[in-house]
């Protein structure tokens, strides 16, 4: 688009903010105004709280918000994945019922895809939804669900047909997480935190109007959710940084962010905190060790190259080019960075690398890094899955022969727990 478009849009949003922005306003009320004006999600359709503007302009609009310190719509957590999925596959009734409360932050959402028996093989889900003519009854178990403990709504992938190939027997629902048939339990990780939940369904109910897409089309709908999950990973990190300004509305936003981000406590360490390595090595005197210097140089090079690679992908995305499976390269690179960072931090710390908590280096941060590393190459899709994606979709190597193509009922799978 031309500069004139951007200038005009910037002028328009500036004028609107000048007229309406007030940091003393109630957060939900302000976000309601944003939703109704279309300035909260300007790239959404006009019919649904947007202004039909190109994604490429959103940065400029955000910049205007930042300039006056205006708070935006609620964006962190799973909600934007829910919104994107409903915008693409939902009925008008879905959109009318859910979208505005997503933007105002009144409703929190969670994603119910993974199961104990199907991690890498998401389409192998065995949580079942059975229709009795009046409503759906859900039974089964989901795992790795962030934020399920405070979500009002869940995006549920469940099996509705056991006699067709596995990708064709799934359906997609919006499920009320506050009903009695839904039990949420935290899952404690090896680092002591509980970032995830497991969710048990015992005859939980879903009304027919909460089906999203057609019966049996759940996999395609879920693909939309997952595509947005990958795309939003970057943005989520940015949205998770609370403003430091003073004012009632900022306090409310900070509380919301703190609440939603709590399960991600170990996420900041996922990159292995490369930024600390050189400084730590110098301060401990270990920078004089030539073997360590080699490993440190490897780490810094790897980390910088990964950033440049990500930057290139981002540039492509911002230029409106399709993102493609290059995200898998970045994910894989992050695993290497994390592993090398752990090795370097260990070498720098020596015997101190054994110590945790207040006794440990940097008040336990190094121990956190060492214990968080293994998750990097698993969470969000294992390295092995990323390698498959790169080999098949980037390099065009042939798929492996499938053994799970027949009716799902006959596919060998893990025993139920």
């Amino acid at each position, binding site marked *: 688009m031309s500069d004139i478009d951007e200038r005009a849009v910037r002028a328009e949003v500036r004028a609107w903010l000048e007229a309406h922005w007030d940091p003393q306003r109630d957060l939900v009320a302000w976000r309601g105004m944003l939703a109704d004006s279309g300035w909260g999600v300007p790239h959404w359709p006009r019919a649904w709280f947007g202004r039909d503007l190109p994604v490429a302009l959103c940065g400029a609009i955000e910049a205007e918000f930042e300039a006056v310190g205006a708070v935006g719509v609620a964006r962190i957590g799973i909600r934007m994945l829910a919104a994107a999925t409903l915008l693409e596959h939902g009925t008008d009734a879905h959109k009318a019922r859910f979208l505005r409360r997503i933007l105002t932050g009144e409703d929190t959402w969670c994603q119910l895809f*993974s199961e*104990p*028996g*199907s*991690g*890498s*093989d998401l389409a*192998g889900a065995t949580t079942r939804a059975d229709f009795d003519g009046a409503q759906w009854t859900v039974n089964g178990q989901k*795992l*790795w669900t962030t934020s399920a403990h405070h979500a009002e709504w869940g995006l549920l992938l469940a099996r509705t047909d056991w006699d067709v190939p596995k990708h064709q027997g799934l359906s997609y629902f919006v499920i009320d997480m506050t009903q009695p048939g839904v039990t949420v339990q935290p*899952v*404690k*990780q*090896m*680092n*002591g935190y509980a970032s995830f939940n497991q969710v048990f369904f015992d005859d939980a109910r879903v009304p027919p109007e909460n089906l999203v897409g057609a019966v049996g089309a759940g996999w395609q709908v879920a693909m939309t959710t997952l595509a947005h999950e990958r795309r939003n990973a970057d943005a989520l990190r940015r949205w998770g940084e609370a403003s430091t300004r003073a004012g009632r509305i900022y306090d409310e936003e900070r509380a919301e962010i703190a609440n939603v981000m709590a399960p991600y406590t170990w996420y900041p360490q996922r990159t292995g905190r490369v930024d600390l390595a050189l400084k730590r090595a110098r301060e*401990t005197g*270990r920078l004089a060790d030539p*073997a*360590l210097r080699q490993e440190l140089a490897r780490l810094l090079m790897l980390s910088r190259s990964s950033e440049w690679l990500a930057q290139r992908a981002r540039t492509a995305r911002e230029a409106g080019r399709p993102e493609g499976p290059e995200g898998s390269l970045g994910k894989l690179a992050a695993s290497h960075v994390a*592993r090398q960072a752990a090795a370097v931090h*260990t*070498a720098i*710390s*020596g*015997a*101190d*690398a*054994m*110590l*945790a*908590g*207040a*006794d*440990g280096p940097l008040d336990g941060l190094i*121990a956190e890094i*060492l*214990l968080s*590393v*293994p*998750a990097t*190459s*698993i*969470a969000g899709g*294992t*390295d*092995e899955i990323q*390698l498959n994606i790169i080999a098949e979709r980037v390099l065009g190597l042939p798929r*492996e022969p*499938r*053994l*799970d193509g027949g009716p799902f009922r006959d*596919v*060998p*799978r*893990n025993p139920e727990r």
Partner: protein
Amino acid sequence: MHYSFTSEQAQFRDVIRRFLGAQSPTVAVRQTMGSARGWEPALWQRLNDDLGLAGIHVPEALGGSGFGHQELGIACEELGRALACVPYLSSAVLATQALRHGATPDEQAALLPRLASGRATATLAWMEGPHWSGCEDIALGARRDGDTWRLDGCKRYVVDGITADHVVVVARDDGRDDDASIGLYLVDGEASGLRRRALASIDETRRLAELDFDGVTAQRLGHPGSGAAALARTLDDAAVALAHELAGAAQALLEASVEYARLRMQFGRPIGSFQAIKHKCANLLLELELAKAAVYFAAAAREAGDADSAALASQAKAQASEAALACAREAIQIHGGIGFTWDQDTHLWFKRATCAAVLLGDAAWHRERFLALTEVAA
């Protein structure tokens, strides 16, 4: 030279493995590691009463069983495999070997029988800063006070330092800075002026402590000037013992991973039928078998008193720690998400491997030392 195990040694291993399988399953390990003491006196006493583990390598005249480094290694390997929470490395290896290498026969006779029977425990306190480069790191000072000695300074990373009945302390005669001024000193765990503070460790199955010495009364061990050599031999013994532990841990991790990969289904087949997993496991087996060869060879060399046994100790520690880290990392990877949950056992060995990798010097340090020793010999 060859290394191999006699059928008696193989039987000894079986007995320990069965014992620990029954007496120290991970559910018990988890309970003990969460306890205040951090190790289980009942298990410790049975290990010693029934199997004579703490004194396996101690001469019969000193209350032990009179076996050697290979039997000690087997014990360590099985304890590492089971992650049993007992003060074996601290008392049976570090303190016992320090006394054997550095104490006079009378001093040994006074203390070793109680350590060998497990009635008392001891530990060795040598490190002060996080990187060990040799005796030049020792700052803790010993000064003569009539018939006895007094210690002032601080030791860190002391294994089982909170619970040890006795502490063998490596200290330096006041005012001198050569290796001849390094001595071993025996301190009572409850001595006045000794402040013991627990250090939180990533590996909750092995406790660490910081010991502050403020004029603590100590008994000087061995002959003057022999401390540095005794310490060096002790640390090499301990490196080989810890390497066995790590080999045992790695073996446990690999076996659990293979078992899981055989059973876990994804995409309609066991994940162990995918080459990504098969080749990962095969590569781990190779790394582990190479490390085990080095570890067993190092034990045989120490038993034989070979000239290159110090280089071999470094080789064993370097290879075993890297193999254990690789097995730990990949075991979690093979288990997938479940692998980094608290309730699954893999992280217990991961944490052991993480800490044991730096205890007694990391792999890079041992590689450099190995080469320096090899270079001189070649």
